[in-house]
């Protein structure tokens, strides 16, 4: 009798504990599921298409002092080729003897082909409401032309390998007031900051998933954001100074992230919260 009571109590207590655990898990699970549902609902009407349309227009329109379109721009696969170029960038460009990402290469073309000054070309690299960014729009258009393509960033050229190695060092570089590096948040599996899932960028699967979802339309900002913006804003939160658009560090870090995503299927412009 005594033994039965003990057992009953133990089983009841165990069941209660299990229930409490389940409840807590269910709460967490529901939150994650709801966020997932929200993301799916968003994806149906991705306003990134508005940027893609404007970018295509900008790409094909004769503009600037020289009144030429960007269709003569060589993004790595020959003049005017946009199909599938985004998944092969950054890469080494012999004409400038430099590794460039898409954003930097576009600015290069806007300056050298259309005749705008570098200042004009980079005056509004990130959109801000009514102050729209032409670079972001063209990036959206060119990136969309790689949808479904497999990431294939080259490291055949010594300068590409050099950029990758530098990018890796920057990824692990701790500094600033908070001792943060990229790796502080992005080098362990299954981590969150508040409720935001963090990709582990040292893991090939996560690196692919993360990189292939940029550029993206950010609902909370109502803007389409590029990889250059993503890095700029990460460093802001890292308490670093302001990352310069198209700087060597920005391209090297992009090289590190893009190359680590090789083999992933490109699926951007995406949509994010």
């Amino acid at each position: 009798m005594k033994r039965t009571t003990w057992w009953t109590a133990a089983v009841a207590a165990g069941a209660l504990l299990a229930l409490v655990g389940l409840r807590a898990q269910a709460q967490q699970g529901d939150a994650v599921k709801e966020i997932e549902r929200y993301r799916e609902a968003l994806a149906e009407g991705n306003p990134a298409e508005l940027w893609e349309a404007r970018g295509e227009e900008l790409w094909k329109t004769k503009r600037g002092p020289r009144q030429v379109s960007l269709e003569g721009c060589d993004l790595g696969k020959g003049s005017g080729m946009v199909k599938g170029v985004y998944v092969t960038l950054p890469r080494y460009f012999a004409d400038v003897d430099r590794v460039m990402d898409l954003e930097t290469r576009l600015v290069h073309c806007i300056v050298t082909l259309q005749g705008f000054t570098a200042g004009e070309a980079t005056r509004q690299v990130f959109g801000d409401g009514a102050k729209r960014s032409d670079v972001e729009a063209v990036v959206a258009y060119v990136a969309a032309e790689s949808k479904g393509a497999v990431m294939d960033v080259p490291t055949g050229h010594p300068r590409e390998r050099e950029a990758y190695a530098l990018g890796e060092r920057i990824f692990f570089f701790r500094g600033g007031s908070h001792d943060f590096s990229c790796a502080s948040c992005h080098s362990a599996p299954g981590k969150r900051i508040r409720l935001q899932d963090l990709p582990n960028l040292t893991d090939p699967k996560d690196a692919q998933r993360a990189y292939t979802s940029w550029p993206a339309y950010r609902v909370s900002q109502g803007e389409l954001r590029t990889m250059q913006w993503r890095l700029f804003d990460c460093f802001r939160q890292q308490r670093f100074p302001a990352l310069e658009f198209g700087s060597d560090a920005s391209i090297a870090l992009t090289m590190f992230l893009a190359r680590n995503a090789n083999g992933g299927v490109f699926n951007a412009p995406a949509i994010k919260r």
Partner: protein
Amino acid sequence: MPDPMRIRATIHDDQATVRVLMSHEMETGQRKDAAGTVIPAHFIQSVVATHNGRPVFRAEWGPAVSKNPYLQFQFGGAKVGDKIQITWVDNKGETRTDEVVIR
């Protein structure tokens, strides 16, 4: 002039599905800029869709609708090649009309 809409119209049996993306700030009039001055309200107030010139959808919108809104609706009695026209008008009187053919 406002940016063009992105409209897609598809058909299944005689049911047309229309998907529309509009480029608009949809400013609520409740926000302040960095200097603390109120950003004036600026939002789409009415949306009308016509099917071969006949109205099939009408909406009255307010400042609660998101920036760059997405709209999807369905209606019956359509066929491939029909024309869908969408017009929006905002509270400042700006307007935009775009047209697409059902495929």
